[in-house]
């Protein structure tokens, strides 16, 4: 038998199944408090701004908010599973005790509350045997109903949040995720019926548990053991979650208010291979390099916000994003902006756009090195558009003040088609640098990692031409994967005794490679070349 002096009365029946249910419940309180916080992106922006005193490394942790959100979600799933399983045992045994299918002690305790002036201990009051008894409890008790409903919501949220669903049909993920509203409301009232019972303080004063434990048949008949009275514990969960729920409500209000701010599309540019560029202006919009914004187009979808990296530099008087047309929403935007039409579109025909942001830790670190290696893989090249443009503007305005003297840019992609616009940018920079007689400032290498025999023949034939046959740039395109060891050694030999920053936007495997190369090619002493790999960028 459980020690009923220490635990709540119900543990008598369940020999730690109740404890096993209450432990994850406590963890769930904590986790449900945490889960809402990482998705309050405006709050995070505020924290980022106000923690300007802290180092960038600290602030960069705020960029991993979604990873944290997912981790907490998995914890909620795990604890919910343990909690549910423990309560399944709990309910089964409580119902059994009620229908006299248990040891006499439990049966006797279950009968408390049947007579007048008694408070019940076992929450199964009706004598319905299992399995109907359990099912009956699940649909009549508030804790049962809310428990089943919110667990179902949780399961639906999780199954619609897998990577494949998020990628291929974002709307299902987004709308299903809003079941969290039902989840939190259900969670707050889950314990309201107070069916977890414990002996009241007054009863404990008059009913000595150590003495009376053995004399259950005499309770109420002898002086030192009156019938014990029980009361339910007040619900605690709401205290944990009401704060974050309020913060999240504020976050949604802020997003709504920001979305009402006027955003004007000043220019729409169609690039080849299903990419469009939107140049926009918004009053009071301030951005930094490497940040991203969320965009909503009510004409396409009233509720959806989609993130895009900013491709313009802070020095420009507009901000721009490049959008690849890959799904329903982007296609809708394509059509709404009139990109499918040939004739010139009047400004008033352009759709209304709402913008939230900018978010993300700025990549100011790029400017604090003399020499940098920038590596962009595939679509990861997008934030570099902003950086390169900004570097260029800074160089034009005040070259002497700019600490950055040399950029080595590596662009790895399967094919450059999707990023023709970026190749155009490089072409522009190339020609402008030639004009200023500083062709060596930016050296870039484009690696096509996917190519076939016919392409190879084509390249071989056109090898000697001045401009590259793929990109039209003066620096030739390279094929396959870069030999990082060579690259690092070459750069190290050309810039001895310098700190060289290495920045990557690309897959994890590449991050590990570059990190290792940075370490192995750095010299050990304080003098000598050092490669510093900035892992948390982007």
């Amino acid at each position, binding site marked *: 038998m459980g020690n009923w002096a220490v635990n709540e009365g119900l543990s008598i029946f369940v020999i730690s199944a109740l404890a096993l249910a209450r432990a994850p419940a406590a963890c769930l309180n904590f986790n449900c408090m945490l889960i809402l916080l990482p998705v309050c992106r405006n709050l995070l922006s505020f924290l980022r701004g106000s923690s300007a005193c802290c180092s960038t490394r600290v602030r960069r942790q705020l960029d991993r908010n979604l990873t944290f959100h997912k981790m907490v979600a998995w914890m909620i799933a795990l604890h919910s599973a343990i909690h549910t399983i423990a309560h399944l045992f709990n309910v089964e045994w409580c119902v059994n005790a009620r229908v006299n299918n248990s040891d006499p002690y439990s049966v006797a305790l279950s009968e408390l509350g049947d007579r007048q002036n008694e408070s019940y201990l076992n929450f199964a009051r009706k004598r319905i045997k299992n399995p109907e008894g359990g099912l009956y409890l699940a649909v009549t008790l508030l804790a049962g109903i809310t428990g089943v409903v919110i667990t179902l919501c949780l*399961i639906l949220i999780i199954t*619609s949040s897998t990577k494949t669903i998020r990628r*291929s049909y974002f709307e299902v993920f987004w709308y299903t995720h809003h079941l969290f509203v039902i989840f939190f409301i259900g969670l707050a009232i889950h314990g309201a019926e107070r069916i977890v019972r414990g002996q009241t303080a007054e009863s404990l004063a008059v009913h000595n548990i150590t003495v009376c434990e053995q004399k259950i048949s005499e309770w109420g008949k002898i002086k030192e053991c009156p019938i014990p009275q029980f009361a339910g514990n007040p619900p605690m969960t709401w205290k944990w979650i009401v704060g974050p729920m309020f913060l999240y409500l504020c976050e949604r209000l802020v997003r709504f208010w920001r979305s009402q701010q006027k955003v004007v599309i000043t220019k729409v540019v169609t690039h080849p291979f299903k990419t469009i560029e939107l140049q926009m202006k918004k009053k009071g919009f301030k951005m930094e390099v490497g940040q*991203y914004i969320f965009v909503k187009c009510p004409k396409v979808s009233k509720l959806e916000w989609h993130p895009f990296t900013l491709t313009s530099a802070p020095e420009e008087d507009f901000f721009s994003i490049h959008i690849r047309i*890959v799904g329903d929403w982007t296609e809708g935007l394509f059509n709404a902006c009139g990109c499918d039409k040939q004739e010139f579109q009047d400004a008033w025909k352009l759709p209304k756009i709402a913008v939230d942001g900018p978010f993300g830790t700025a990549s100011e670190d790029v400017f604090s090195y003399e020499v940098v290696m920038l590596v962009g893989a*595939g679509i990861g090249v997008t934030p570099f558009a902003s950086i390169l443009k900004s570097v260029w503007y800074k160089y034009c305005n005040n070259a002497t003040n700019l600490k950055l003297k040399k950029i080595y840019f590596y662009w790895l992609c*399967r094919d450059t088609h999707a990023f023709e616009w970026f190749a155009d940018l490089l072409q522009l920079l190339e020609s402008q640098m030639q004009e200023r007689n500083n062709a060596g400032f930016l050296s870039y290498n484009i690696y096509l*990692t996917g190519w076939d025999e016919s392409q190879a023949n084509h390249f071989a034939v056109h090898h000697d031409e001045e401009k590259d046959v793929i990109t039209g740039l003066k620096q030739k395109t390279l094929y396959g*994967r870069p030999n990082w060891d060579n690259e690092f050694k070459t750069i190290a030999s050309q810039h001895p005794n310098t700190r060289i920053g290495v920045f990557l936007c690309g897959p994890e495997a590449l991050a590990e*490679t570059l990190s290792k190369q940075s370490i192995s090619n750095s010299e050990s002493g304080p003098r000598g070349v050092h490669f510093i790999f900035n892992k948390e960028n982007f």
Partner: protein
Amino acid sequence: MGQIEWAMWANEQALASGLILITGGIVATAGRFTQWYFGAYSIVAGVFVCLLEYPRGKRKKGSTMERWNYYVRAVLHLLLSVPAGFLLATILGTACLAIASGIYLLAAVRGEQWTPIEPKPRERPQIGGTIKQPPSNPPPRPPAEARKKPSEEEAAVAAGGPPGGPQVNPIPVTDEVV
């Protein structure tokens, strides 16, 4: 890409339901609850559903399954879920599988097809052993100590190709959304 919608979610939901049925079934059977044989059924049904639903999304062979298949799945899942509804331990599995059945029905009614989600370019054959490796140092070859690595720009122009090694792509460069 907008083609694959409900069926994919139905697949995920059914897979999760299978796991929940197995878990609920184990609880009922191990705890010897009243009428625990429903729990035993739930384990078997859960395993069956998991095996049915596990191959998801990635169609390596490229075979397509037609719409009628989704009707069959919808009905099958609905029937499988009913016996588990008699026990509290497994009723969550019933609810989840019934929802999955509903989503499959929706997919069937909308006339969806199971198409591979991998984009076409990945099926391009990778250049492996068939590459003809050009000599990296054509004759006349200078003595060994003069054969240093050229600077970065010269390598790019002169070599006209990768400095060494066959053209395989050990690390596929994927279009990861930032």
